[in-house]
């Protein structure tokens, strides 16, 4: 209160005041406001913690796994839970916990690449549509609708059946010619095919949101007012359009991240995604399913982790949506 009275009295001394206000703590910004809303939401906080933990595990996977995820020990097959193997071992005697951790690595690498690629394509396409307009925009809208109508599973199966065999053959001949072991690493073929095809399916969502945001914000009064004040086109884009468009884009980013993670597991489960011996939660679930009535822990570990992570994304997505949804602002 004292502070307030003081500033009232010194308004005449503007110079001193301005210098003071430059170091003063900034008042609540809209982004901070949204963050506070997010923090107030318990589900979102739980989701955020789980996802942070997941990314941490994925990043430092090689340093925290108790065992090598590939080394088999046929004397220790299908062991139950123990201190040595907290999640037990699978039918080849591999440590399940280590495989779940590497599965997290697979899931995080794939889903982040898919999301980033689809956002790069989506932003470019959506922004071109919004800015150029006319026939090109109509074509882009048509392309978005068309792409969204393709079932993702069907596309991945088709790509697997049509592109994978020739690619593998080509790599094999390259290996025979050059003896370069790079061409033996077939795991990258899976990665590239899976995230390539998923990114192809996910970009239209990003494109649609970004196109809509640019179209609506570009015609806002404050953009006209800024242009009237002489702000350059670049300034309008970076300081007026992009910051105002961020809310829905952040919400969509988290949603696509979660979806991509689930889809990766689903494809690996069906055998069209990441293939063994590279661990993915999907192919681990598929393996565990064969022996679940004898050794349920082999199924329970990856399935449980997948369920928790999916739920975390769902909570975080809801929280972000509430935090950034302008309709709920006063």
């Amino acid at each position: 209160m004292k502070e307030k009275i003081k500033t009232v009295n010194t308004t005449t001394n503007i110079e001193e005041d301005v210098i003071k206000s430059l170091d003063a703590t900034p008042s609540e910004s809209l982004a901070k406001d949204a963050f506070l809303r997010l923090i107030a939401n318990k589900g979102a906080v739980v989701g955020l913690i789980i996802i942070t933990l997941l990314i941490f595990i994925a990043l430092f996977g090689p340093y925290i796994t108790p065992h090598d995820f590939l080394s088999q020990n046929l004397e220790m097959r299908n062991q139950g839970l123990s201190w040595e193997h907290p999640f037990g071992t699978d039918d080849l005697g591999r440590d399940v916990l280590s495989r779940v951790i590497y599965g997290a690595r697979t899931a995080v690498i794939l889903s982040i690449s898919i999301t980033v690629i689809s956002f790069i394509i989506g932003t470019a396409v959506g922004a071109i549509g919004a800015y150029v307009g006319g026939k090109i925009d109509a074509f882009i809208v048509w392309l978005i609708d068309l792409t969204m109508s393709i079932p993702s599973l069907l596309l991945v199966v088709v790509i697997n059946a049509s592109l994978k065999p020739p690619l593998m053959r080509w790599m094999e001949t390259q290996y025979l010619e050059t003896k370069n072991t790079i061409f033996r690493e077939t795991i990258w073929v899976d990665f590239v095919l899976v995230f390539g095809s998923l990114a192809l399916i996910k970009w239209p969502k990003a494109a649609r949101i970004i196109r809509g945001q640019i179209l609506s914000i570009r015609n806002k009064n404050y953009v006209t007012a800024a242009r009237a004040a002489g702000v350059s086109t670049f300034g309008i884009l970076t300081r007026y359009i992009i910051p105002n468009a961020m809310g829905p884009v952040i919400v969509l980013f988290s949603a696509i991240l979660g979806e991509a993670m689930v889809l990766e597991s689903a494809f690996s489960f069906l055998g069209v995604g990441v293939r063994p011996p590279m661990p993915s939660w999907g192919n681990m679930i598929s393996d565990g399913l064969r022996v679940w009535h004898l050794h349920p822990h082999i199924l329970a570990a990856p399935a449980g982790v997948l369920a928790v992570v999916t739920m975390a994304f769902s909570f975080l997505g809801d929280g972000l949506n509430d935090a950034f949804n302008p309709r709920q602002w006063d």
Partner: protein
Amino acid sequence: MKTILEVRNLETTFKQRKTTIHAVNGVSFSLRKGEMLGVVGESGCGKSVSMLSIVNLLPPAATIKSGEILFDGRDIRKMSRREVQHLRGKKIGMIFQDPMTSLNPVMKIGKQMIEALRYHNKLSKEDALKRSAELLDLVGISNPTERLNEFPHQLSGGMRQRVMIAMALTCDPEILIADEPTTALDVTIQAQIIELIKDIRSKLDSSIILITHDLGVIAGMVDRIVVMYSGYIVEEASVDDLYQKPRHPYTMGLLKSIPKLRGSAVSRLSSIDGSPPDLLEKPQFCPFAPRCSFSVERCWKENPALLTAAGESEESGHKTACWVDTRNGVEK
């Protein structure tokens, strides 16, 4: 006095799929240095579009078909994009109608205010903020330095409009265009903003164009008034002439429709019958003829030009676009 802005034969159209809307149909007017010009007319008569045409801020669907816009003798339409950008904010400031949506919601007031100062005057951040605080003080905002650090949603409508006015004044523009600055505000705040604009005029010597649809708002403040109807200027006169001896039937109708505080309590408020014309076609006759009680045969055949009103000297600058001498209802 020196003419600072001259608009000649401005014609602006909007394209809508296959139809064309004729929003401004050959408007000519001039603004002298230090003068305050009022532009009056009902919604959709082309007031705002004419003003947006001046600084080339039209929406993408609109194009300027023809005309010259001379600022200090140079045609703005022939300037490069860069030159026009230097003009906006620096030489021509604009105040918009709706203060609630005319400020960027994610940017602090201070940061928005210094944009123009840093771009046009190349001031340092500190100097620009200092100047912004002075301007906020000028437009009557208390605790200006505190406000600089706030976001638009923390201010009331009246305060936001004051901020908008301060922003338009940042670089001491030679022309200030105020597009219905009081329409979105309630009556008491309206009066304050009007006082503020008058005050600014006496402190700075900018020329001001004030757009409004309310003749009552500008009666006591402007020097000259231009009345627009359907994309045409139908009457132009000094403020006293316009209120005391309006010559165009539309202006007469507008003046009659202002509610009066004195006089008989039972008299009904008079209104202009009919509705504004469709702008899809450029009329070949007087656009006001269908609603006009003075109309004669000629009104339906030819569109009248804006000429010195009958019985007025050219120096008085009282012009009207009408085939009839409305003082006696006789065709000229």
